[in-house]
């Protein structure tokens, strides 16, 4: 931790970061298609969307004509087409996860409801895009594409109907009340299905032309659940339902629809086969949903982070102008110029908001990029499985296990000093696209739920802090930047597309993947390396926190509680969910540091003389966030490691399990910090009040060492916060917000 050397950098942030900084950090400096999408989306967000919010458009639950006008803006600006392939009417070739994340970021900067509304069509199309037959994909994607010049047609809008009224509401894929049965099946003809489905909280239902609906089988002639495509003109009932009385995201159309329709079996997403007189859907509904949510959840996480970052400018302006106009604040005085920014606490808290926003955005965009790389590899994996004739869950898992071993071998070889023979093997494994798939897949399975969980959950809390920095103004409709609404909106983002518990549950499974754990070990080395080249980013502290998390995970995996019950197992959510929470902090802070490193290494040609100060500021934000993450991880791990040991009764037997103060002091050299836990005061009656730590420290001396190491790694973190705070008091901001209020 070489922070003292940082004093040599007096330069700091000069202006709020612009597009050039963001393109570098979020790695789309070479993608002009994405840069144009950002500009285009920003024009809609800070134009018609912002005007509608400022004029009170959020004050109604109904899908009004004014809200409906936004759809045309989304079409004209390319937001609708961002999901399409060029041959379908889109303009971005290849995977589009980063593109959609950037669009969501820009819209949510002003209003996350608009972001949800604009992107919900993609959610409706995603089942078809990810798992639909080629015919289904071609048909519905082209219908949903905006009209080309000279074409006279309105694009079809899609909705995704999964969630159902209580008791079935939610994304628990095991519970579905929606049913599909065979209505008619004439010899030699395609079966006709009857679909009965009630939806709850379905986005886009106010105007959707078709719906992809999850239904379970209610007929022995249909083997499993599936997703079916329902069109508004299908025979039967296509009732859009009552608008949901949401307190948030009012610029998206949400209602509780009712469907009772007859549709041809060709509407089963992904198609079907007929075996022994039974319709066998090629994908059951949980397979489709997994493929869909795996990607769309990332954009939701990005939305909350956008709001945190959008709060910075209005808060600075409010803080600086807080006393202007008062008799006691004469122009030119410190009170006039700095306002509330005279006070350290106001600046420190704003630094924390900014740091959390950066971390979330970095994590979200890193995950989106990861999926962009993973998507084509996944197709290659599927092709390889097909080419090798591997099918069925058991055979596929066996095949993937072999791939996992190769991935582990690669990580092991990379971790140790090596000779020529090993180098050749490393090169061979690195060139293997399937090994690459296995490694990225293991990452994606963690980073996606981590983004959704951490960005929205922690983001909602931090957004509250941002609102509080505006005083009473923060909770009025007049608040610049709509911060109060953004805070409320964040709660929905933490809930829809799988609430926090669902993300924690998914993480508790995926974080146990040996390939992920091995990669995390590699990230510890990576961060140590970064901290050498970029001291003051907090990389060292974060590496220590990762080590502690890994140690804790391994320890808990083989530990039991005081009653002998295993700690790491599915029902033990008190353990696994907390580890998942801690993991979110780590992943976000790591992504943030890696982005800051890119800015530091590649930013000079773009930023010129402002580069050093800008890079320094972003490194300071990293340091602040890494310290916070390390603190959270340390607290959570300590609770888990110690918390399942029974507190001894303070009798002879219990005392025998503890050290005396003199023992503890003697052990201090071996287990740093131990003596600090002890006291040897003798209470009235001769019984010591406390002697040493109550918990048995057997087998956890490494934990104590790692925990103490983290404490030491916090060195310089508050200095970084001071520097960042000073930068916020001096940074130049625009004269006014670039969207209405």
């Amino acid at each position, binding site marked *: 931790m070489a922070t003292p050397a940082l004093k040599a950098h007096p330069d700091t942030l000069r202006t709020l970061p612009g597009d050039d900084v963001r393109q570098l950090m979020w790695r789309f400096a070479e993608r002009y298609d994405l840069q144009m999408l950002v500009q285009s989306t920003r024009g809609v967000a800070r134009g018609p969307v912002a005007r509608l919010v400022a004029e009170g458009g959020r004050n109604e639950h109904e899908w009004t004509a004014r809200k409906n006008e936004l759809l045309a803006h989304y079409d004209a600006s390319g937001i609708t087409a961002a999901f399409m392939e060029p041959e379908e009417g889109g303009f971005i070739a290849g995977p589009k996860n980063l593109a959609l994340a950037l669009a969501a970021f820009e819209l949510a900067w002003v209003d996350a409801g608009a972001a949800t509304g604009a992107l919900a069509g993609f959610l409706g199309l995603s089942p078809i895009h990810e798992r639909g037959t080629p015919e289904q994909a071609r048909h519905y994607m082209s219908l949903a594409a905006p009209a080309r010049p000279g074409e006279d047609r309105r694009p079809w809008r899609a909705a995704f109907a999964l969630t159902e009224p209580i008791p079935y509401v939610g994304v628990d894929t095991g519970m579905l009340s929606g049913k599909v049965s065979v209505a008619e099946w004439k010899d030699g003809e395609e079966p006709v299905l009857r679909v009965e489905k009630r939806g709850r909280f379905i986005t886009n239902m106010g105007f959707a032309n078709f719906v992809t609906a999850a239904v379970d089988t209610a007929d022995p002639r249909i083997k499993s659940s599936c997703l079916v495509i329902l069109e508004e003109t299908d025979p039967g009932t296509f009732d859009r339902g009552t608008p949901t009385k949401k307190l948030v995201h009012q610029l998206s159309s949400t209602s509780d629809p009712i469907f009772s329709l007859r549709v041809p079996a060709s509407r089963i997403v992904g198609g079907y086969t007929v075996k022994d007189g039974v319709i066998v859907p090629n994908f059951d509904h949980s397979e489709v949903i997994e493929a869909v949510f795996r990607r769309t959840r990332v954009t939701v996480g990005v939305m909350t982070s956008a709001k945190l970052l959008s709060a910075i400018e209005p808060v600075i302006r409010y803080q600086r102008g807080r006393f202007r106009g008062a008799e006691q604040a004469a122009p030119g005085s410190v009170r006039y110029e700095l306002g509330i920014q005279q006070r350290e606490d106001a600046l420190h808290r704003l630094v924390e908001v900014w740091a959390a926003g950066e971390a979330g955005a970095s994590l979200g965009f890193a995950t989106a990029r990861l999926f962009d790389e993973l998507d084509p590899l996944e197709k290659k994996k599927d092709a390889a499985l097909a080419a090798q004739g591997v099918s069925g869950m058991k055979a596929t898992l066996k095949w993937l296990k072999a791939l996992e071993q190769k991935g582990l071998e690669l990580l092991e070889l990379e971790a140790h000093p090596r000779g020529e023979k090993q180098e050749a093997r490393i090169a061979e494994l690195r060139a293997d696209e399937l090994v690459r798939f296995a490694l990225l897949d293991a990452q994606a399975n963690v980073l996606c739920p981590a983004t959704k969980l951490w960005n929205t959950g922690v983001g909602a809390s931090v957004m509250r802090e941002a609102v509080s920095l505006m005083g009473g103004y923060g909770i009025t409709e007049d608040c610049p930047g709509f911060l109060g609404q953004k805070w409320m909106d964040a709660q929905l983002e933490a809930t829809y597309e799988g609430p926090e518990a669902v993300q924690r549950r998914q993480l508790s499974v995926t974080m146990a993947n040996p390939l992920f754990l091995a990669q995390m070990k590699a990230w510890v080395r990576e961060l140590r390396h970064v901290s050498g080249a970029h001291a003051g980013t907090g990389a060292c502290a974060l590496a220590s926190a990762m080590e502690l998390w890994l140690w804790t995970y391994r320890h808990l995996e083989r530990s039991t509680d005081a009653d002998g019950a295993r700690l790491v197992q599915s029902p033990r959510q008190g353990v696994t969910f907390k580890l998942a929470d801690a993991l979110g902090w780590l992943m976000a802070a790591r992504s943030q540091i890696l982005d800051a490193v890119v800015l530091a290494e590649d930013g000079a040609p773009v930023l010129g003389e402002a580069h050093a100060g800008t890079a320094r500021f972003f490194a300071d934000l990293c340091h602040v966030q890494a310290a916070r993450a390390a603190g959270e991880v340390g607290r959570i791990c300590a609770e888990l490691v110690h918390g399942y040991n029974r507190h001894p009764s303070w009798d002879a037997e219990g005392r025998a399990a503890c050290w005396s103060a003199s023992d503890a002091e003697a052990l201090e050299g071996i287990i740093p910090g131990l003596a600090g836990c002890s006291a040897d005061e003798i209470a009235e009656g001769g019984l010591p009040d406390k002697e040493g730590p109550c918990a048995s420290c057997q087998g956890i001396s490494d934990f104590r060492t790692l925990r103490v190491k983290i404490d030491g790694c916090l060195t310089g973190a508050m200095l970084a916060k001071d520097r960042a705070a000073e930068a916020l008091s001096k940074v130049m901001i625009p004269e006014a917000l*670039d969207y209405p209020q």
Partner: protein
Amino acid sequence: MSTGYQIVVLGSVVPDPLQTLEPAQTPQGPGLKNELMLPHVLDPWAAHALYEAANLAARTPGSKVTLVSLGPKAKLQQVMMAVGQKVPFELVALDGPAGGFTDPHEVAARLAETVKALPGLDRSRLLLFGGWESASRGAGVTLQLVGERLEIADQFQGVDRLTPGEGGSFEVLERVEGGKHQVSRCAGAPAVLGWATGELGEPKNNPQIGMANMRGVMPALQKAAPAPVGTGGVEFLSVAVPRAQRETRIVKDMSPDDVARELVEWIGQD
């Protein structure tokens, strides 16, 4: 024989007007504080000219629009990501300073050289468009100087409308004093037209246009020739932005007619 106009629009970037624009002395001479860190936009006057050019080209088959822009390459690239989606054009970029303190003669010389060197330039079809003013420089002389260097005698400033006529002629609506327009008829190209606001709104972004434009814009930016224009030897002793003056008066019990009368008197003071 090809028909239609060759419309060359001269225009560069300026800091976004919402930003705090504070004059400062830099190692390169006078400039704005943190100028290169500020987000930029296409100079609004030049933007009007570009949109009018695209509109004219769309109405006149065989026409082509070329935007010649002298500015910092990195900023030009950022601005093109938005402007490039609005109307079809080809970009010719020159990498140099675009601030309000560069010498218009030096800038005009580089721009004129560049226009002359445009492949396939046909003076008989050339319309040179630009802003009659600039958001970074109020003098609005650069376009006129380029016209002089290209020996184009027909120059119109403060243009709000151009209507093509018979045989290559066109009618021009120019702003004159008192909120009035002067109507001129020009026999044909070549001509210089310095646009006021024109009559068109800002076109919406269209990514399909953007993708088509970018095939030329990105290579043009990559091969942008250096154009290190300076201040022409002028020494600036001090610079300041105009102070906004606000005189607030609270009046009660004043009739709307009296308010209107007072406003008319106030306007008449100038």
